[in-house]
C-alpha cells in the first residue's frame, strides 16, 4: 500500500505542472557574430549582442534615435564639441557603476583597435580628444564638424574596463578575452561557459538593468541563441517548435507557409536596406551615360520585385532608402522599358562604347537573390544585344576586388544595409569620391559638384540644411544613373506565436529582448 502511494505521488509529479515551473527559454535562431567583442566587429548579426548585452550612449528604437545610457547631449555651434551626460546609477553586470571614464576607455579602445566599428569615427576623432569632464559628462572634440556623429553613436558599446584589465595580453586591450566574454551593462548577461562562436550563446536577464523591467512584467529570463545555417532546416525548426525565431531574411517563397502554420507567423517590417546592381563607372562601357541608362531601363523591376520576390519588397528609386530623410521630393524610379533601353544602347554603340564584349556581373553565390537578379537581367539584356556573363564570387572576394577601379568587376550585386540611420550611410559613402577604394563606393562615380554637396552635408550639424544638400546631391546622382537601384528590403522574420513584443529596427533587424515576452 505504501509502495502504491509512493508510485502515485511520483506519477502525479510528472502529470501535474509544478507551480512556478521555469519558463521554457526563448530559442533565437538568428545568425551570431564571429566574436562577442563589439569593438572588433560591426555587422547585422553583431547587433543582437550589442542591443542585448551592451548599452551605448544612444540607441535606435525603430527608426528613431533615442538617448540611452546618455540622458542628453549638447553640441557646439561649430559642430566640433559634443558633450554627453550619462544617466545616474547605470550598473555593469559586475555591479560597478558606469562613469564617464568608462565611456572614455571604450572610445579609446575602439579607436586603438581600428576595426570595423571604428571606421565611422577615425576620420574625425582621436583618442586624446575623448575626455571625462566629470563623473557623468564625456566630451568629444572632433577634428572637423561631422553631422552623422550622433547617428553613429549607437555603434559603440560601452565596456567595463575593470573586468577587462586582468585579461589584457601584449597590449591587446583584452581582445582575445573579449571575443568570448561579457563586459557590458545590457539587459541580458552572457554566460561565457556555454558560448561557442557562431554556434551557441546563452544569456540570462540582468535584473539591475538601468531601464528597469516595469515595462515588461513577463520579461524573458533565459535566452538560447542557436543559429541555424541552412534555410530549409531553419524554417522547419521554427515550424516544429525547436526555434522561436528565424533570421530576418526569410526567403519570400517561405512566407505563406510559415504564416499558415498554427504555431508560427512572419513579422514583416520595412527596413533600410537597398538592393542594387553596381556598375563600374570608371571602366568602359559604363563610363558612358547612355550605357548606364540603357542598363537602368533594361532591368525588369516589376518582374523581379513582384513575381520573383512576391511583392515582399518596396521599389526604391534611388540610393537612399525611400523611408529615410534627405530624398528629393517626387523622384520617379526608372522603369523597365526595353525600347528606351535599346535607344540608349544604340546611341552608346554609335559613340564607340564597347557593348559587344561580355559584361561580367559578379554575384554572391550563397545569396540566392543576387543570382536570380543577374539571371533575369541576363535574359533581358540579350534582347538589347548585350551579353551578360554571370561570375560566381563571395562578398569577401568582391570587397577585395573593389579596392581599385581596374580590378572592380563591371557589375556586381549586393545590398547596402543600415549601419547608422543617416543619408551618409548610403548616398554619402556610396557616391563621394573620397570613399573610392571601399566597397560602398565601388561604382567609382565621380562628380565634383556632388562631392562638394556631400561634404557640406557631412560637415553640417543643421538638420534642415543637411536635408537639402543630400536631396540636391541625390537629384544629380539619380540623373547620372551610376547604379541600378532596385528595392528597399522588407525584413521577414519567422517567429513562434508565443513570442510577444518583437520590435524591429532597420539597424541590425532589431531583436531587443528586453521588450519581448513569451505567451505560454
Amino acid at each position, binding site marked *: 500500500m505504501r509502495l502504491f502511494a509512493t508510485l502515485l505521488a511520483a506519477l502525479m509529479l510528472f502529470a501535474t505542472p509544478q507551480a512556478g515551473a521555469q519558463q521554457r527559454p526563448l530559442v533565437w535562431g538568428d545568425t551570431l557574430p564571429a*566574436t562577442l567583442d563589439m569593438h572588433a566587429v560591426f555587422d547585422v548579426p553583431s547587433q543582437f549582442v550589442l542591443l542585448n548585452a551592451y548599452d551605448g550612449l544612444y540607441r535606435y528604437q525603430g527608426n528613431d534615435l533615442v538617448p540611452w545610457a546618455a540622458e542628453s547631449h549638447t553640441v557646439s555651434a561649430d559642430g566640433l564639441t559634443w558633450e554627453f551626460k550619462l544617466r545616474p546609477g547605470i550598473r555593469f553586470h559586475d555591479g560597478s557603476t558606469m562613469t564617464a571614464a568608462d565611456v572614455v576607455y571604450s572610445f579609446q579602445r575602439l579607436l586603438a583597435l581600428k576595426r*570595423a566599428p571604428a*571606421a565611422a569615427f577615425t576620420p574625425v576623432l582621436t583618442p586624446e580628444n575623448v575626455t571625462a569632464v566629470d563623473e557623468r559628462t564625456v566630451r568629444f572634440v572632433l577634428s572637423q564638424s561631422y553631422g552623422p556623429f550622433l547617428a553613429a553613436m549607437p555603434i559603440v558599446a560601452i565596456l567595463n574596463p575593470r573586468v577587462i584589465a586582468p585579461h589584457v595580453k601584449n597590449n591587446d586591450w583584452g581582445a*582575445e578575452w573579449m571575443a568570448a566574454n561579457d563586459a557590458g551593462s545590457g539587459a541580458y548577461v552572457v554566460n561565457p561557459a556555454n558560448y561557442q562562436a*557562431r554556434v551557441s550563446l546563452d544569456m540570462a536577464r540582468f535584473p539591475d538593468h538601468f531601464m528597469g523591467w516595469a515595462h515588461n512584467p513577463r520579461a524573458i529570463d533565459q535566452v538560447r541563441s542557436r543559429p541555424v545555417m*541552412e534555410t530549409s*532546416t531553419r524554417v522547419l525548426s521554427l515550424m516544429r517548435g525547436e526555434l522561436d525565431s528565424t533570421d530576418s531574411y526569410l526567403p519570400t517563397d517561405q512566407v505563406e507557409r510559415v504564416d499558415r502554420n498554427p504555431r508560427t507567423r512572419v513579422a514583416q517590417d520595412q527596413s533600410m536596406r537597398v538592393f542594387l546592381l553596381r556598375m563600374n563607372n570608371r571602366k568602359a562601357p559604363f563610363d558612358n551615360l547612355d550605357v548606364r541608362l540603357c542598363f537602368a531601363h533594361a532591368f525588369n523591376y516589376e518582374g523581379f520585385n513582384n513575381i520573383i520576390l512576391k511583392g515582399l519588397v518596396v521599389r526604391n528609386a534611388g540610393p537612399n532608402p525611400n523611408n529615410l530623410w534627405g530624398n528629393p521630393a517626387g523622384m520617379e524610379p526608372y522603369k523597365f522599358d526595353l525600347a528606351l533601353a535599346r535607344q540608349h544602347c544604340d546611341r552608346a554603340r554609335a559613340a564607340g562604347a564597347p557593348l559587344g564584349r561580355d559584361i561580367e556581373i559578379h554575384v554572391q553565390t550563397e545569396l540566392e537573390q543576387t543570382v536570380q537578379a543577374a539571371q533575369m537581367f541576363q535574359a533581358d539584356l540579350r534582347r538589347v544585344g548585350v551579353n551578360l556573363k554571370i561570375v560566381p564570387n563571395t562578398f*569577401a572576394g568582391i570587397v577585395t576586388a573593389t579596392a581599385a577601379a581596374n580590378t572592380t568587376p563591371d557589375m556586381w550585386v549586393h545590398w547596402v544595409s543600415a549601419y547608422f540611420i543617416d543619408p551618409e550611410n548610403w548616398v554619402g*559613402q556610396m557616391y563621394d569620391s573620397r570613399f573610392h577604394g571601399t566597397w560602398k563606393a565601388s561604382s567609382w562615380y565621380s562628380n565634383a559638384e556632388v562631392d562638394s554637396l556631400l561634404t557640406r552635408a557631412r560637415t553640417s550639424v543643421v538638420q534642415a540644411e543637411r536635408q537639402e544638400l543630400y536631396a540636391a546631391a541625390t537629384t544629380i546622382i539619380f540623373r547620372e544613373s551610376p547604379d541600378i537601384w532596385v528595392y528597399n528590403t522588407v525584413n521577414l522574420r519567422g517567429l513562434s506565436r508565443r513570442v510577444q513584443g518583437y520590435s524591429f529596427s532597420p539597424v541590425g533587424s532589431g531583436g531587443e529582448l528586453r521588450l519581448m515576452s513569451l505567451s505560454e
Partner: protein
Amino acid sequence: MARYVLRRILLALPALLGLVLLTFVLVRVVPADPAAMLAGDAATPAQIAEIRARYGLDQPLWQQAVTHVRQVLTGDLGSSIFSGRPVVEEIGFRLPATLELTFVALLLSVVLGVPLGLLAALDHNGPVDQIVRLLSVGGLAIAGFWLAIMLQLVFSMELDLLPLRGRMDVALGNPPRFSGLFLLDSLLAGRFDMAGNALKHLVLPAVTLCLPGLASIARFTRSGVLETLQKDFVLYARAAGYSPFRLATIYVLRNAVTVTVTQVGLLFGALISGAVAVEAIFDWPGLGTYAVQAILAADYKALLAVTLVVGVVYAVVNVLVDVVQALVDPRVAEQLK
C-alpha cells in the same frame, strides 16, 4: 610491428608538411583580402592598408609562408582574424562533433556494408545480389542534400520520431566535457537521458552520410568475396565438410576483407569532406560548417588550420588502417617481418 607503425608515421610527416605549404599557397592566392573585411564598410584604403600591415598581410607571400610553417612547427596555428580567438580553441569545439558524426557513419557503413556484400556474393546473381546492387547504385547516386531533406521531412516533420537538427535538445544543455563527443561524454557522466538524446540526434545525419560509403563497402566486399570463393582452399574446405556459414564468415570473409579495410581508410577522407553538406543541413556544429564560414569571411588562418587538422586526422586513420590490415591479414604481417 612497432617499427612499422613508426615508419608509417614518419612517412606521413613530409606529406603533412607538403599539405601545410600547398594549402597556404592555395588559400593566400585566392583574391579575398581579410583586411578589407576587418576594416568595415566605411574604411578608406589607407585604413585597410594599416590593418594589412598589422596582420603581416603586406609581406611577400614566401615570407608569410615561412612564418606560417614556423608557427605550425611550434604548434601555434594562430588566431582567427575575425573572432580573435586561438584557432586551436575554436577547432577544439568543432572537431569532436565532426569526428563523432564521421565515426558513427563509418561504423554504420562497415557494420551494414560488409554483411550486405557478403550476402550478395554468396547469392551471386540471385535476388539478394540484385537487391544489394540496386541499393549500392542508389546509395552512390542519391544526392546527400536531397536525402537529408527527405529524411527530415519524413522522420522529423511527419512522423515526429527524430530531431531535425543539432547535437542535443536545447533544454538538456551540453554534457560535461571530457572528449567533446556528446554520446561518450553523456555515458561517462552517467547521463543516460543525454546519451539517448545524443544518439537520436545522430541518426539522421549519420544515415545520410553513411549511404555512399555503405554502398561502396558492400560493392568492395562483394567483389572480394567472389574472388576468394574461386580460390582452391575454399574448394578444399568445402570438400572437408565445413558448413557454408563457417566457411563464409571465418575463411572467405577474412581473406576477402583486406581490400575493404583499405577502402575504409579512403572512405574516412570522403566522409569528412561529405560532412560539409550534411553538417550544414542538420545544423551540426562541426569542422565543415566552420570551414564554410571561414571561406565566406576570408578567415585564412581558420581555413589553414582546418585543412591541417583534417590532414592529420586522415593520416592517423590511414596508419591505423595499415595496422588493422596487418592484424587481419597474416601475409601482410609476415611481409613486415
